[in-house]
Structure formats: C-alpha cells, structure tokens
C-alpha cells in the first residue's frame, strides 16, 4: 500500500492541507484549511503541527505548492539533450526568465512529453524559476515539524498536475484556468497537459464591493487573454475553468461567456477522488473542495519528490541523474567493467604468481626425480636383457644329443614297424612327431607291438612327455601268400597306423 502524503497549498493567509495516497483515483483521507492571517509567521509551523495532530493526520511526507512570490513558468521545446547539456540550457533560460532585480533564484524543470516536429524528436519542457525566499518559506514551514518535505512546487504547476488527472483534453484546444489563491489569481493557459502560459495577478479585494471585484477580475482576465493571443496567435482558446477560494466564482462563470467569449465552468473533480477512507466532515470537505484544487494537485504524484517541478535545491539535477540515461548507464557499465577488470587483473597476477612459484618448485623436483627414473628404467632394461640372455645361453648350451636320441628310438622300434616320416619342430616347446604303421599277422599282434613300442618310447628319459594326438587305426589287408601255407586265414594281415608326439624338455 502506498504511503500517505500531505499535499499543502501554502498561501500568505491560508494553508490548505490534504492527506492522500496515489492510485487510479486519488484516495483522500483527511483535509484541513488553516487560516493564518492573524498568526505570527514564526508560529505558523506550530499552528500547522497542532492542527494536523488534532485532526489525526498520519502522513510523514509532504509536498508544498507555494505562491505569493515571484515565479515564472515557461514552456520550452528542445531536442533531446544530455543531463549536462540540459542543466546548462536550463540555467541559461532560467536567468533569462528571472524578473529583473531577482537576487537569488531557484529553478527546476520537468520534461512533459516528447513529440516529433518535421521528423525531429523534441521534448516539451516546463521550466519554472522562483525567488529563493519563497522556497525557503516553504521549507521553514516544515522544518520544525515531523514531516519530511519531499518537494516544493508552484501553485500553477500543482493546478496543472490536477488537470492532467481529471480532465479529458481536446486535441489542440487551449483551456484557460483561473485559480484563486491568497491575494492573487493564477491564470493558466494549458494545451493537452502542457502549460503554455501562466500569469499571477495580484488582487486585493479589500474595500471593493463584489461588482467592482468582478469587473476588475474580468478586466484582468481579458488582459491575460490578450497577452496569450499575442504570444500564441494560432491557439484555439475554447474554455475557461475557475477554481480556488473566492465567493465570486459563480458570478465569473456566469459572465465569462458574455464578457470573455468563452464557455465557463467551475473545475469539478469530485468523481476522480476516492473518499472511501475519508474520516473528516464530508459536507465541510465538499464545501472546500474547489479551494483544495492546488493542494490535491500538489499531492497527486506517482513518485513524490521525483515527478513534476521540484524547487528544492539540488533535487532537479538528482531527479535527472536518477533517470535512465544511456550515457550514464554506459559510463556506469564502463566503470563496473573497469573495476571488474581491475579485480580480475589483481586476482590473475596474484594467482599467476602462485602458480609460477609452484611450477618452478615442481620443475626443480622433476629435474631431481627424472634422472633417477631414467636410471631405474635403464637398470630394469639391463636386468631384463640379462635375464633373456641367460635364458638364451642356457637354451643354446643345452645340446640335445640327436645321435643318441635316434639310436634309442631305433632300439625300441618293433621289426614290424615302418616310419613314414619323422618331424622335429622347434616351437615354444620342441617336439618330434612320428607317423608310421605296423603290420602284423593279426590285430592283436599289431596292437601288442604298438603298445610295447609306445611304452618304451614313453620310458625314454630324453622325452618330457609322449602322447598320441589321435588314436591308432587298425585295418586289415591281404598279405602276400606264404609258401607252404594255403589256408585263407593265413593269407590275411593287420595294419596299425599311428601318430606319436614326443615333447622334448
């Protein structure tokens, strides 16, 4: 929920206060109209504090619209400028604007809207300059109070701000607004929310009858219109609105059509207010509503202290600097990047130093350990070569006595056996493969002979093992006829084919 804020119209004889919060409609909580004509200016703060305390005002922040002093308003149309350029231009323009003899002056500006003229982007800027004592008076009013003064503006700007919220603007039509405040009348000429011209007319009704007052006011308004038309000859002035505190409002509205040639009305904005939380006297509030126009316009801001004119010293520049400015953003980003780079650079060099120190240390350690490892590798290589060499020498030196081996085999071969071939292979394990066959009178004899041969071969000490890769094959064959034996059985023989593998050590 938005914070409550006080909108104060500060005049020489009256202080009008409203307590509101910002919304689609302005939510009004409380109001006060303080008559300070007979109060010592030094005690006005005391009076204000007392009234607000008694009436139960809860707000902590305040905005003041002040009048009564010298202030000037000017609408400028300028191309987009940087903050620095804008400040320079506004300072120059405010000096031009200041009335002669104004010793100390404060100024502020507000960019109202952006439009294009002949394809060129231009900003409408409201520049306000005011004499410093006027602003100081407003500051002093709240200096001894519990309220924080966020913004000081002028009564015309406050009224214009109210109009922006409560009026539907007709395109290109100029509206004349007459606001009565204290001992003066503020005459405003506004078009689509932009203040084209503002005049403050001193008017002291003391000693005048109503008719005379009315006539004098009409004359002042005619002069103002003439002045406006001289400055804005193309403008279409269509309507006049009256607001503020004056008993002649109704009479002026009635005469405006005839005397000024403009349709007149009292400024109505009751429908734009949310009074659901209002806790004061409703009838009294309605009675004073036209005179509270400037106070309500003062407070009706989305961002109090930032939006609109702020004559408090230094606030306008701060507002501009707080806005989104690409140059400013770029500069800030550049600074952030530079800081980041600086921090990264420092971190980089510090860590780099550490890493370099570690790397040097490791290089030194490696220089010590590498020769040791190389020596170890050489030793291992020599050891391995020596082992292999020893094994080779052993292998070459261990001669198999082939003569003895073949002779031993010849001793155990049965007379019935025939070797087809004998093969020695020097693989991982040297071995002799013997293929052959036995021929015997019968299968029994053949197998017996082979068995005897195989057993004898296995028993030879020069073989590590003897095996048969495949079993023997026994076949019968016709033996050549033996002289003297005529029987058919005697003419048959058995053949035992074998293959034996003998592994050498």
């Amino acid at each position, binding site marked *: 929920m938005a914070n409550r804020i006080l909108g104060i119209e500060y005049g020489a004889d009256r202080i009008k206060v409203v307590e509101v919060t910002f919304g689609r409609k302005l939510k009004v909580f409380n109001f006060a109209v303080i008559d300070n004509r007979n109060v010592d200016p030094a005690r006005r703060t005391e009076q204000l504090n007392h009234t607000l305390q008694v009436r139960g005002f809860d707000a902590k922040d305040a905005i003041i619209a002040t009048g009564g002093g010298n202030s000037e308003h000017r609408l400028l149309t300028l191309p987009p400028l940087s903050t620095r350029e804008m400040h320079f231009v506004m300072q120059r323009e405010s000096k031009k604007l200041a009335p002669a003899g104004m010793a100390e002056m404060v100024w502020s500006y507000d960019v109202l809207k952006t439009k294009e003229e002949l394809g060129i982007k231009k900003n409408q800027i409201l520049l306000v300059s005011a004499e410093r004592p006027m602003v100081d008076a407003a500051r002093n009013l709240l200096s001894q109070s519990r309220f924080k003064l966020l913004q000081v503006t002028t009564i015309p700007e406050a009224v214009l701000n109210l109009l922006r919220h409560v009026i539907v603007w007709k395109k290109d039509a100029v509206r004349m607004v007459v606001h009565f405040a204290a001992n003066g009348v503020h005459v405003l000429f506004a078009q689509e929310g932009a203040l084209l011209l503002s005049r403050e007319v001193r008017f002291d009704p003391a000693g005048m009858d109503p008719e005379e007052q009315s006539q004098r006011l009409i004359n002042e308004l005619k002069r103002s219109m003439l002045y406006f038309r001289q400055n804005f000859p193309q403008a279409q002035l269509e309507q006049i609105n009256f607001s503020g505190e004056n008993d002649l409002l109704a009479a002026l509205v009635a005469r405006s059509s005839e005397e000024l040639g403009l349709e007149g009305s009292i400024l109505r904005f009751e429908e734009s207010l949310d009074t659901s939380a209002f806790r004061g006297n409703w009838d009294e509030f309605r009675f004073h509503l036209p005179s509270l126009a400037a106070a309500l316009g003062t407070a009706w801001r989305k961002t109090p202290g930032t939006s609109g004119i702020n004559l408090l010293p230094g606030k306008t520049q701060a507002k501009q600097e707080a806005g989104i400015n690409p140059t400013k953003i770029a500069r800030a980003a550049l600074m952030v990047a530079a800081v980041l780079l600086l921090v990264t650079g420092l971190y980089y060099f510090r860590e780099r130093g550490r890493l370099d120190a570690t790397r040097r240390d490791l290089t030194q350690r490696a220089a010590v350990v590498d020769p040791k490892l190389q020596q170890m590798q050489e030793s291992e290589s020599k050891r391995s070569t020596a082992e292999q060499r*020893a094994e080779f020498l052993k292998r070459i030196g261990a001669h198999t006595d082939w003569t003895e*081996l073949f002779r031993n085999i010849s001793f155990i071969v049965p007379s019935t056996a025939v070797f087809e071939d004998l093969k020695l292979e020097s693989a991982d394990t040297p071995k002799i493969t013997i293929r052959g066959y036995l021929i015997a009178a019968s299968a029994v004899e053949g197998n017996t002979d082979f068995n005897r041969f195989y057993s004898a071969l296995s028993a030879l000490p020069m073989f590590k093992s003897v095996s048969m890769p495949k079993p023997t094959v026994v076949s019968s064959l016709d033996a050549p006829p033996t002289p003297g034996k005529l029987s058919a059985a005697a003419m048959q023989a058995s053949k035992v084919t074998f293959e034996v593998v003998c592994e050498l050590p």
Partner: protein
Amino acid sequence: MLVLAGGLLYSLNSSSAAVTRLKQDVERKEKQAKDVRPPTAEEQSQWDAQETQLGSLLLSEQAVPQFFEEVTRIATENSIQRLSMNSEEVMIDPSKAATADEARVIAAGIKHYLAVTMKFQGQYADVARFLGSVAKLDRPIQYHLVELKRGVPYIEALVVMNVYKREPA
C-alpha cells in the same frame, strides 16, 4: 574489458589445470623413484660376463664360410648323399617379432641370424649321426625344423636351422 577479464580467468584456469597435472605427474614419479633398486656390483659383473660369453659364442661374419665348411665336412664323414644348402640372412625387427622364439632372441640382444636350409639323403643311422655332430659344433645353432621321410633306399631329409650371428662391428 569483460572479454579481457574472461580471457584472463580462462588463461588462469588453464594454467592451474596444467600445474595440477604437473604436480600429479611429479608426485607419481617421486613415488616410483622411492622404489628404485640400483643393480649391485655382483649383478653388474654377472651381466658383463654373460654379454662377453654371448659375444664370443655368436657367429661372426668372417666365421660363416668356416661354419659351412664344418657342416659339409661332417656330412661327408657321415656318408650323407645329395646334400644341398641354402642360407638366408634374417634381421629381426624389434617392433615386429613374428614368433615367441624371435621375441626371446631379440630380448637377448640378438638381431641377426642365418636361416640355413639343408636337403639331403642318407641312412637312418647316418642322418642321426650327422644331426648330432652338427648340433655338437661349438656354434650357436638351433634346429628349427627337421623332417625325415621314408624313401628307398635312403631317407629324404629336410633340415632348417638357425645360426645366430654377432652384430657387425
């Protein structure tokens, strides 16, 4: 500037990773170096003796004709018939040792050998004596293949033997 900062951080990260790898490598090497056992003087002398022994045993280039003469003389003495000999110089590529036998040979530091193929005929007893006598020569000989086939009246023999050679000086 942001790119430069990013580049610095990236470079730092790369260097840090490289130093970490170097540290791990050095620590691993230091651990290995702790277990280094240098060869003893006894081992060293034993290896030297072995090397000398092998060097004297291997067949030098100059001794090849003499070796062939010895073989043929033994063949004649043992009545070997129709002897034919063919020899081929073989160099073992250390990275491409074809058989386990070759790998063992190259590991012992021998890179050359002669593959001698002999074909001949003879009686069983003569062949046996011939093979035995050749093997008994004081030469680094290893029978690779001996194949005897029955023939009439002689046995047909095919012998392939490896004769290991000394490295040319």
